[in-house]
């Protein structure tokens, strides 16, 4: 556990899966065995100064995949990368602190945990890190997934295939509930649920508020601009229980009740 590598890996594929969204697959035999849901890698992109933090989307044997959206110069260059190899630093971050006996054998133990009711809440590309989480959890649960419009909804089939209940919302109403996913959470969440949330800051703030009101426990994956990804630059500090913590090293997963927004 908690081993990280700074290595060059072979790119297996780097394909557009729908408009502006790409899946990068690399053969990373050194690192694949150490990847845990909620962790990320810093990806070197030629032509931009800093590496980019990208969540682990999936791990299959010695292959690690990333899902990213073109949002600026770095991700644009990444989507057009022609080289055969790519330099990655990782896996980084603490990953989701899963309750005992909830994850498949590669994570913790085999037995199912009674009463564990996972609820994943994803916004936008936040779906990537929770997809890897859902794939590793033994217990099936419910995915609440909000995106801008129908064309921004990803991985629905993958969640369906592994038996998750899916509830979606889109801001333009082109699929599912119209509006933000957080609008429909209060009536649906139960006090015994365990939340796993990954998405934009306003969404996480709203989830924190709902979780507090309904006394529901859970975890949120935070995102800040990072320079190093390992805790050296202290650029990604966040307030956790009144203390400065590094999103990259102490997080990026924090207990929802500990986050001071």
């Amino acid at each position, binding site marked *: 556990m908690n081993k990280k590598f700074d290595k060059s890996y072979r790119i297996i594929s780097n394909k557009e899966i729908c408009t502006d969204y790409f899946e990068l697959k690399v053969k990373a035999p050194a690192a694949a065995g150490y990847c845990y849901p909620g962790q990320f890698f810093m990806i070197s992109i030629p032509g931009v*100064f800093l590496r980019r933090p990208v969540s682990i989307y999936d791990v299959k044997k010695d292959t690690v995949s990333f899902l990213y959206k073109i949002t600026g110069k770095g991700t644009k260059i990444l989507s057009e990368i022609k080289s055969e190899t790519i330099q990655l630093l990782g896996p980084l971050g603490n990953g989701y602190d899963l309750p005992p006996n909830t994850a498949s054998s590669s994570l913790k133990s085999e037995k199912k945990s009674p009463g564990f009711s996972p609820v994943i809440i994803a916004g936008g590309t936040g779906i990537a890190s929770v997809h890897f989480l859902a794939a590793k959890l033994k217990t099936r649960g419910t995915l609440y997934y909000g995106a801008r419009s129908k064309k921004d909804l990803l991985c629905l089939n993958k969640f369906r295939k592994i038996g998750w209940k899916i509830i979606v919302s889109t801001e333009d109403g082109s699929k599912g509930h119209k509006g933000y996913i957080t609008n429909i959470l209060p009536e649906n969440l139960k006090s015994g649920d365990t939340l796993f949330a990954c998405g934009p800051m306003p969404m996480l703030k709203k989830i924190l508020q709902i979780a507090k009101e309904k006394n529901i426990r859970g975890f949120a994956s935070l995102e800040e*601009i990072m320079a*190093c990804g390992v805790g*050296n*630059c*202290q*650029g990604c500090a966040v307030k956790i229980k009144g203390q*400065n913590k590094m999103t990259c090293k102490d997080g990026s997963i924090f207990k929802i009740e500990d986050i001071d927004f």
Partner: protein
Amino acid sequence: MKTDLSINFAGIKFKNPVFTASGTFGYGYEIADLIPLKKLGGIVTKTITLQPRSGNPQPRIAEVEGGLLNTIGLQNIGVKAFVEEPLEKLSKIGVPVIVSVAGAVAEEYTETVQILSMQKGISVVELNLSCPNLKKKIICHDLSLMQNIIKSVKKVSRVPVIAKLSPLVTDISELALTAQNAGADGITLTNTYPAMAIDVKNFKPRLSTVKGGMSGACVKPMSIRCVYDAYQRIKIPIIGCGGIMTGGDAVEFILAGAAAVSVGSASLVSPENLIKIIDEIESILKYKNIKSIKEIIGIVKNT
């Protein structure tokens, strides 16, 4: 023929001239599993202050062309916590430790250095007189305050004292000379460059404090100029700092007059760069058939 990379800086021997730069190396063990730390020439710590500081709000980092802006705001655990745990771990690496110190007034610097002076495992103190990210003005812009700090720290420090200066001055060689005359045993040139960037998507500054310090490859030629100018005027040795990404960059600084270099942004991009830079310096010297790095310090002159 074995190439000699060792240097003598202010009376302290370093096995090679490549140091980390303050504020880019945490407390020294975040990357211990990625690179052999004992290969480094020296370790400059995160800047330490008398009291803990929580630093500036988010966002603290903005990438620019060829570098980055930061406004960390000297977040640190304070000198008392520093000497309890990180210092002990750092001193076990087996590389000289240079502790970076900052404060608002002379008394804060001296009190911090007094506490450090009671500890083992510190080779040098570097006074950060040039942080651009605090509400007050940059210390070395107030010459009498800077002189006062250097003089009073020199009285209490058991180890050599280096002054880290800001590049944002009209004549860097005058500033370097002032630091030397106040008693500094060496200087570091330079700290980050005060800079700013605006997001045109929302018309807002990209850093919470609006302005920050710029570092990275984009500042290198300006810092080399600072080292060159200062070297012509002062006798105390210089640590060159600013945008060193390769061994070639480091050699440029040394040719301009630096006795050692510190590497910051390049190690944030990839910790391995620290080791590559050391190896590349050695290759360059071998290629040029030079026995010792000391032979090329400041040999580039205006002819």
